[in-house]
């Protein structure tokens, strides 16, 4: 008899070394992760990274080739979708077009064995939760995209599933509505206290909804952690490049500056102080700096802190995004993007010579990503 590893207590979902192939393509390569009760986890990655496969494996539309999948401590191998207590919010809602809003919300209740008499009250309760009272008799086609989304959410949550899966929940909506519904969605999910997995390729969706982000690439987990960790402390060049904008400096370790700081000598000869306690003399590496962590000053700028770096450059483009200004600065190491809030006062203009102040702590040292 095979000895099964003990499942982690409190885990709602547990993946252990799950492998899934489609023909020659390996969609998931020994994927291992857990989701604890009440947690909202986001699976984030580009298309083809295996996040949708993971979702389909959890909901039971696909079976793994190897590995274990458990939901609430129970193995899901061989279980049909209707034998799992999982709710799935489809990207395009998948509302039943020939049924009314109330019938849609009641569908899961009818099939999950709710008493006939209790269903109308539960439907009303769910529609109240998503603020759609009075829409019971409408057909999905008579609703706006945002309303359809909320009906779909009510339908998913009605049966109180152990786990809620959201497949690109906001991607079908336009930008303005997306922001509003993101807040609503988060509020509703928090208020019902559900354990949630959000599958998305949109980093904003992941950052704003999730307590923890699992960044996936080519069927493997690149990194997992809180949104802040993922954003500020990426551990691979892929994560740094995929999430948010990044400025890159490529070079090798020069001298050690003490206090956990090392000097990066870039290929263009720029010397940067970087927090890099594990640096090895002469090793080549890349440093990544987020655009909003760079401060821009005129020619008279001076380092506020002795460990701060000052890099000269010339502004070649200014893009006004409304809330913030994006500056493209041409330096010795290529173009650097700087983001600053759109405040009142004198502005740096196109063609100005500037000094960029980069704190050593804001530079993330990563394995060399490109020459």
């Amino acid at each position: 008899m095979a000895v099964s590893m003990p499942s982690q207590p409190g885990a709602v979902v547990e993946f252990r070394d799950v492998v899934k192939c489609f023909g020659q393509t390996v969609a998931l390569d020994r994927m291992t992760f857990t989701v604890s009760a009440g947690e909202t986890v986001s699976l984030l990655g580009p298309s083809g990274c295996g996040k949708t496969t993971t979702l389909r494996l959890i909901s039971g539309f696909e079976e793994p080739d190897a590995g274990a999948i458990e939901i609430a401590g129970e193995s899901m191998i061989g279980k049909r979708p209707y034998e799992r207590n999982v709710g799935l919010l489809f990207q395009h809602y998948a509302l039943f077009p020939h049924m009314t809003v109330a019938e849609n919300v009641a569908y899961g209740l009818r099939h999950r064995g709710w008493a006939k008499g209790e269903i109308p009250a539960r439907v009303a309760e769910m529609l109240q939760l998503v603020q759609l009272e009075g829409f019971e008799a409408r057909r999905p086609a008579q609703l706006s995209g945002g309303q359809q989304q909320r009906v779909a959410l009510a339908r998913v949550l009605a049966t109180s599933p152990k786990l809620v899966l959201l497949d690109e929940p906001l991607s079908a909506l336009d930008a303005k509505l997306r922001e509003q519904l993101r807040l609503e969605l988060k509020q509703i999910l928090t208020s019902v206290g559900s354990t949630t997995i959000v599958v998305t390729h949109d980093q904003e969706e992941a950052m704003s909804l999730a307590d923890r982000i699992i960044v996936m690439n080519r069927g493997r987990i690149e990194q997992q952690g809180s949104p802040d960790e993922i954003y500020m402390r990426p551990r691979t060049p892929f994560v740094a490049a995929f999430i948010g904008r990044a400025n890159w400096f490529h070079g090798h370790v020069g001298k050690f500056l003490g206090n956990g700081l090392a000097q990066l000598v870039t290929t263009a000869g720029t010397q940067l102080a970087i927090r890099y306690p594990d640096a090895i003399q002469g090793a080549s590496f890349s440093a990544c700096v987020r655009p909003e962590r760079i401060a821009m000053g005129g020619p008279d700028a001076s380092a506020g802190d002795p460990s701060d770096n000052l890099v000269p450059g010339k502004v070649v483009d200014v893009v006004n995004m409304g809330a913030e200004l994006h500056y493209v600065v041409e330096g010795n190491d290529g173009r650097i993007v700087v983001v600053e809030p759109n405040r009142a006062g004198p502005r740096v203009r196109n063609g100005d010579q500037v000094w960029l102040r980069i704190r050593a702590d804001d530079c993330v040292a990563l394995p060399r990503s490109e020459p």
Partner: protein
Amino acid sequence: MSGRRLDDCLRLIGLTMIGTVICFLVVPIMVTTLMAFDARPYLGPLPPPALSLRWFSRFFSDDYFINGLGTSVELACLSVVLSLGCGVAIAVGLDRMSFAGREALTSLFLSPLIVPPVVTGFALLLFLAQMGVINGFARLLCGHIIITIPYTIRATLAGLAGIDRSLTEAALVLGARERSAFWEITFPLARTGIVSGAIFAFAVSMDDVSVSIMLTDAKTYTLPIALISSMRANFDLSIAAASVMLMLLTLALILILEKAVGLNRAIGQGVFR
């Protein structure tokens, strides 16, 4: 300039062709309809000097025609039901398949559309004789199911093709078994396709000569067969009257079902995605 003249010329040719085709489609039917109401007891030149219903009453007083009409209606209804049953099942099966043989299998099921009906009829006659089936109605029923099934399969496939797979998946995740998901989601959404398949099947069955003529016997024959053999024996205008009634029957059927399906669509706002 000359390019523009060429355009005008081509447009004129196009309009002429459309007009001609419409003439050939409509004029013979109009002539037939007019002649069916001819009061003269013989086949005379157009236009008829007076109108009457004599050919209609002649049709209904002829047992040969009435017998054929009865068989035709009975046959059409039965073959629609059976061909719909098989056709929907086959279409659902084909729709769910993903392997490479799916296309080949679809073509196979639609092949009665390509095989000449006379060949189908003759082959079936030989086959059924070998099997010992000599009952005329049973033979006709087999033939009519074969010729109507491509229509029910194809229409159902078209109906199923418009249904987003995620709807079925949503039903399954919400706790519905495959069977419930089919009857509650897939079937109602494919209904438009299924109903139009039934209309086509009925019309094809009512109309068929080539296959039926091989499979009739002395006592069991369809209305089109009765019309043809009566026309050979003594050509009179009760055939025109029968044609008018066949046309009206088909028209009524299409209107009724269109209304039924159309109404349904109106309720669903026409967006069965």
